[in-house]
């Protein structure tokens, strides 16, 4: 079932000035309920603009945003309800922490929802367990945390609102591999345990291939490809033309296939590649 539908969306920054920029140009996208959808594209292709339309932070210059089949801009007064339903973690979310303790900061969203204190406590505990923040960290000031911990605290601030759709704009940018894996793990955990829909923006093909069910490829303010990983990565030539790469394993497998080795060229995770190669050598691994 379609959770979010974008219909012929265009978005223009500073219209009518010399600094006018068309960030999105006639974009239509369907996001299926319960999936993890990845948005990839080079810098400036409009990814961040697109995700800010999903929860009504920005209003499209033209076109409609449908969440659960209703146009979110039909009742502009109730736009904050959409923001609780579609939780957006912006890029570098740790810069938005402002409370004295991590705990209070996570409580900011739920408190704005008007929940009672008992419920808020429960949500803090739940959200911090999802992102793997220890109890003792909750009482600390954001200044005392490491970069990765701050990032996870900020994500917990959104998860605490229990959004139906969790949208993350480059959640792993600027983190070390360990921090990155921890973040992705908690995102997958949230999806698996709540059945929420997840949208992730990234330009790491490897991560996207590993995590996502569906991919949306953006270039020059447009959506150029949409489909599952296998479909998207089979267009290696086109992806390279817009400055994106395909996962290293896919590249390797395609090369092998080209050389006449009998393997599946559409494999995009290391795990699948290993079993594919094992088949070749007739070994069990």
């Amino acid at each position, binding site marked *: 079932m379609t959770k979010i539908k974008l219909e012929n969306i265009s978005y223009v920054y*500073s219209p009518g000035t010399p*600094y006018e920029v068309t960030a999105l140009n006639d974009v239509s996208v369907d996001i299926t309920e319960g999936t993890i959808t990845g948005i990839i594209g080079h810098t400036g292709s409009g990814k961040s603009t697109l995700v800010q339309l999903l929860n009504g*932070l920005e209003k499209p210059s033209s076109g409609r945003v449908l969440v659960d089949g209703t146009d979110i801009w039909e009742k502009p007064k109730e736009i904050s309800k959409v*923001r609780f339903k579609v939780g957006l973690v*912006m890029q570098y979310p740790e*810069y*938005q922490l402002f409370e004295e303790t991590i705990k209070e900061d996570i409580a900011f969203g739920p408190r704005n929802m008007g929940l009672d204190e008992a419920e808020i406590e429960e949500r803090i505990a739940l959200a911090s367990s999802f992102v793997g923040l220890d109890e003792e960290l909750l009482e600390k000031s954001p200044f005392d945390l490491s970069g990765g911990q701050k990032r996870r605290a900020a994500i917990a*601030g959104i998860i605490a*609102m229990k959004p139906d759709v969790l949208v993350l704009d480059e959640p792993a940018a600027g983190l070390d591999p360990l921090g990155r894996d921890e973040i992705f793990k908690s995102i997958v955990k949230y999806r698996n345990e709540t059945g929420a829909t997840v949208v992730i923006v990234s330009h790491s093909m490897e991560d996207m291939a590993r995590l996502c069910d569906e991919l949306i490829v953006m270039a020059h303010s447009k959506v150029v490809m949409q489909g599952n990983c296998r479909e998207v990565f089979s267009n290696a030539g086109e992806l390279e033309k817009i400055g994106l790469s395909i996962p290293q394993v896919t590249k390797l497998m395609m090369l092998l296939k080209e050389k006449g080795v009998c393997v599946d060229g559409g494999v995009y995770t290391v795990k699948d590649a290993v079993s594919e190669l094992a088949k070749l050598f007739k070994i069990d691994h």
Partner: protein
Amino acid sequence: MKNISFGQYYPAESIIHRLDPRTKVILAILYIVCSFVCQSAIGFTALIFSMLAIILISKIPIKTILRSIKPVIIIMVFMAFLNLFLVKGGVELTVWKITIYSKGIYTAVTSVLRVISLIIGTGIFLTYTTTPIELTDGIEQLFGFLKKIKIPVHEFAMMMTIALRFIPTLMEETDKIISAQKARGADFTNGSIVKRAKALIPILVPLFISAFRRADELAIAMECRCYRGGEGRTKLHVLRYRTRDFISMFIFIAFLAGLILINCFGVEYPFIENGWF
């Protein structure tokens, strides 16, 4: 692009855009003097034409310029009315029990013209065609002689430049923080004043933290490059007067001289003795 989107700089390809910023400061001053020297009808006609010429040459759309005049329209109307009803002299004109004088009409019109030319002159030379950074650079050089009497011109200019450089960055940052807090359901528009003031905390705290962080980083970066103030410092973009600078200054000086001549050579300037300006 974003580092100049602050203020009113209007990017275009015109000779005025290409002038040395020092020249533009001088031209703006000359133009202000011109508008005050004007007294006779001939002088003001010349002033109107010069304004049109400057606008045309600068390639700034009329609409943009009118927008900059809009905020002072009320003041201009107020000034015009004062002149109209309070200045006496010349031919009497009674309409509906209210007596106005021809001299009143003249001063009303000319005082408005002066204000418009002031705005257009300073606006076009100093804000529309010059980026704030260029302008500080120009002012620093132009007033460099003040260093001799121990005024830290370079330091002031550096402070200005840094402030100007960071205004758009901080504005962008503010936008991002506002969006991030809105995404968590923050509401800045409803509720009592106290509530709305409280709603600013989630914006101000991260904004201050990031401003201090940026200041720290900038200070370290400057130290790393051995910044030690203006002493013996050379410039990447050395300002140099070119032919166009001399020609434009010459034209402005000639214009000013012309206006003064008109005043001296008894061309009637009928009602000036005790106008408001």
